[in-house]
C-alpha cells in the first residue's frame, strides 16, 4: 500500500464515528492535499511527515467540530462526547477535566433535585389541602402555590446555570487541549 493510502486509511479509521457527510468532506481535504503534493513532485513519505501524525489530526478535527456543536447548542450529550475525546488525550487531562466537571455536575444535580423536591412538595401540600386532615384547603393550596413559585424561580436559575456550565466547560476543555498540545510540543 502506498504511503498516502496508508495515511488516509489510518485517518478514516480514526474518524469512523464521525457521521457522513462530514467524514467524507474531511477526508477529501487530505486526499486533495496528497494529490496536489504528488502533482508537484513531492514524495509521498515527505507529504505524510509534513502533514503530521494522523491520530493527532483526527483528534484535532473531532475536537474542533464537537466543541463548536457543544458551544452553539449547549447540549449535554455533545459535551460528554467532546469530554471523552478530551480525556483520551491523556491522563493529565483526565485529572484536570474530569474532577472539576464531576464536582460542578454534582452541585448542579443537587440544584435540580431541589427543584424537583419543591414541585413534589407542592403536589403533596395541594393533596393534603384537598383531602388530608393536616390543614385546611386554603392553607394547603397557599403552601402549594408558594412552593410552585419558589420551584419556578429555582428552575429558571438552574437552567441558566446548567447552560452556562455546559458552555464554560466547552471553553475550558478547549483551553485544556491547547495546554496539552503546547506541553507535548515542548517535550
Amino acid at each position, binding site marked *: 500500500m502506498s504511503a498516502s493510502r496508508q495515511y488516509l486509511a489510518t485517518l478514516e479509521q480514526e474518524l469512523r464515528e464521525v457521521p457522513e457527510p462530514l467524514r467524507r468532506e474531511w477526508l477529501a*481535504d487530505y486526499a486533495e*492535499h496528497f*494529490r*496536489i503534493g504528488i*502533482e508537484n513532485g513531492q514524495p509521498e513519505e515527505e507529504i505524510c511527515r*509534513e502533514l*503530521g501524525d494522523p491520530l493527532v489530526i483526527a483528534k484535532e*478535527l473531532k475536537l474542533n467540530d464537537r466543541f463548536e456543536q457543544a458551544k452553539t447548542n449547549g447540549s449535554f450529550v455533545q459535551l460528554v462526547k467532546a469530554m471523552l475525546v478530551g480525556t483520551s488525550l491523556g491522563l493529565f487531562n483526565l485529572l484536570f477535566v474530569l474532577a472539576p466537571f464531576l464536582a460542578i455536575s454534582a452541585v448542579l444535580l443537587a440544584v435540580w433535585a431541589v427543584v424537583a423536591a419543591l414541585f413534589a412538595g407542592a403536589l403533596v401540600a395541594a393533596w393534603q389541602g384537598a383531602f388530608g386532615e393536616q390543614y385546611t384547603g386554603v392553607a394547603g393550596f397557599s403552601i402549594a402555590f408558594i412552593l410552585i413559585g419558589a420551584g419556578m424561580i429555582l428552575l429558571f436559575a438552574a437552567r441558566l446555570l446548567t447552560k452556562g456550565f455546559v458552555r464554560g466547560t466547552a471553553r475550558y476543555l478547549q*483551553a485544556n487541549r491547547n495546554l496539552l*498540545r503546547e506541553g507535548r510540543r515542548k517535550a
Partner: protein
Amino acid sequence: MRLNVQFKKGVLDLCVLAMTAREDRYGYELAVMISGKFDIAVGSVYPILNRLTQEEYFTTYLQESPGGPPRKYYRLSAEGRMKLEMLTEEWRTFTAAVNEWIEEGQRL
C-alpha cells in the same frame, strides 16, 4: 501560557483570513503557507479551515484545476471580512503597545 495558546490561535485565524482577503485560495496553498511560517503541522491547518468555515467566515466551492480534478477553494464571507477587520485592529493595538515598550527599553 494560556494567553500564549489563545494568542497563537488568534494569530493563526488572523493569518488564514488575511491570506484569503484578496483572492480565494485552495486548502493546499493555505496549509503549506501557514505551516511554512509557524511551528504547526501542515495537517493541523485543515481543522482550522473547517472551524472557520463552520463559523461561516468562509464559504467553499469546487473549481477545476488546469489538467486535474477540482480543488476546494475558500472564499472570505462578509462575516469573515468583519472578523478579519476586528482581528487586524486588535493586532495593531497589541503590536503598537509592545513596540512602544520595546523602544522604551532600548532608549539610553
